[in-house]
């Protein structure tokens, strides 16, 4: 049980979303930085997709009402448990009554708080994530408020050394350099002009202030144009899809994207890059690199294997703690 001490409408309970409800017109949803939520769950011994708290509004303060193993991952912030500092990507045992404070991160936009057993809110349409737009799921279908008490599933608490346990691996966070997002060409890629193909990969794209859980609107010096105007019927859209409305400035669909739309699609960003993008702030720039399906699959599979290895390492470390 966890008591929220700050009003934080943008801080929500998230898991891996509800992909099976998309045919009902329900957004896929779930954590924006899925890697960070997964790492947090790995650290506290949960299934990778258990529900945690996505924190996008800082500082965030909670009080533990019971002894609880927790982890903080994602954007590296100053984290204190009753005043004691915790390293990034760290899990720890909190005693009942202790207060956790997560300050504004120095890099990145979203931190994740995970708890052994996971946040135990009801499963709605196959997921525990909060759909803020539609107002259901998560904790009462809304962002967290001061005084909310979040239920936590009862589990045998995983073994943790007195000072906690962390990962030496730090997920990459946006810095000064302009990152390249790997893009698979989508249905209308060939309908764009040669100049558009060149601009897509050669010019930097600024993330505008219209960047939220639904989508990131980008702005570039030269807009992307199609050879002729396209009129498409509505089609299903997945997070990561880069749509280009008639004005020629791309929109990247994020976790809470609408399930269908009719704008031309120039490409789709691969999932590991989407987690990285979700940590970028308005005003920052990105570039695109077009890759083929084989390259995309290779990157995704390497990434998944890496996450599995980390999970195994943490699990092995915990076995050693028991046997000592």
């Amino acid at each position, binding site marked *: 049980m966890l008591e929220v001490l700050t009003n934080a409408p943008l801080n929500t309970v998230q898991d891996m979303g509800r*992909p*099976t*409800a*998309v*045919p*009902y*017109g*329900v957004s896929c949803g779930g954590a924006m930085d899925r890697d960070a939520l997964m790492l947090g769950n790995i650290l506290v011994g949960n299934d990778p997709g258990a529900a945690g708290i996505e924190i996008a509004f800082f500082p965030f303060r909670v009080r533990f009402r019971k002894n609880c193993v927790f982890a903080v991952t994602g954007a590296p912030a100053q984290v204190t448990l009753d005043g004691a500092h915790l390293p990034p990507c760290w899990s720890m045992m909190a005693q009942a009554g202790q207060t956790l404070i997560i300050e504004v991160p120095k890099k990145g936009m979203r931190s994740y708080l995970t708890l052994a057993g996971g946040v135990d809110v009801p499963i*709605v*349409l196959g997921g525990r994530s909060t*759909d803020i*737009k*539609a107002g*259901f*799921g998560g904790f009462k279908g809304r962002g967290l408020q001061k005084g909310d008490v979040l239920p936590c599933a009862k589990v045998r608490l995983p073994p943790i050394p007195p000072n906690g346990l962390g990962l030496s691996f730090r997920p990459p966070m946006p810095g000064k350099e302009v990152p390249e997002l790997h893009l*698979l*060409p*989508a*249905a209308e890629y060939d309908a764009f002009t040669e100049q558009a193909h060149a601009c897509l990969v050669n010019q930097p794209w600024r993330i505008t202030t219209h960047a939220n859980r639904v989508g990131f609107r980008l702005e570039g010096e030269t807009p992307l144009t199609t050879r002729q105007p396209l009129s498409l*019927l*509505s*089609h*299903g*859209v*997945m997070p*990561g*899809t880069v749509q280009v409305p008639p004005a020629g400035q791309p929109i990247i669909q994020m976790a809470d994207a*609408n*399930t*269908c*739309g009719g704008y031309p*699609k120039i490409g*789709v960003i*691969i*999932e590991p890059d989407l987690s990285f993008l979700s940590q970028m702030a308005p005003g920052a720039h990105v570039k695109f690199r077009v890759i083929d*399906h084989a390259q*995309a*699959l290779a990157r*995704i*599979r390497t990434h*998944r294997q890496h996450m599995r290895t980390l999970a195994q390492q943490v699990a092995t470390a915990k076995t050693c703690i028991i046997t000592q």
Partner: protein
Amino acid sequence: MRISCAGADAFLLDMSEGAFQDAIQKRIWSLARILPEQPGIKMVIPGANNLLVTFDDENHEAHDIRRMLHMLWAEASADEIAPRELVVPVTYGGAGGEDLPYVAGVTGLSESEVVALHTGAMYRVAMIGYSPGFGYLTGVPPQLAIPRRDTPRLAVEPKSVCLGGGFTCVTPSRAPSGWHILGKAHCPDLFDATAADPCMLRAGDIVRFVSA
């Protein structure tokens, strides 16, 4: 059918041939019914004369899935779904139907002629999408098939009856929309996340509007 990449583990199947066709959509419903039972298929989202499919890219190769999709589409016959029939009373015009005069102006009809055309037609739910429980209804009389607004409204109230791009709808929730608002529907909520069957509308259903 054109198949394109919609992600490392997703294909978009585009069967459209210009304007929306009911006959194509019926074959799509048939394919959408068969696909989830096929090995490796994770999710199927019917669109307007198209279909998005996601698959398990850990255990299946994209080219195998692609081949299977071509084969199943070639075999797909029109699905006759036993439709449910819904009658929705609507208050046309006034505060809840602010675009009725505009639609009348653009189509060169009187407001009562627009209402007569809209209530006289039989509509079918082509697909559910965009927002929870939002059904795209086909069967709009050609005189009423007008383009969407140049600038979408930031919010349209729930249960607004709208027209846009050859489709009509009843909006399930407050949401942005570029469609023209004809009136206000008097019907139960179109979406309930906690219900076993969360959407009031289902692809294939028949909807008729009557003037309240």
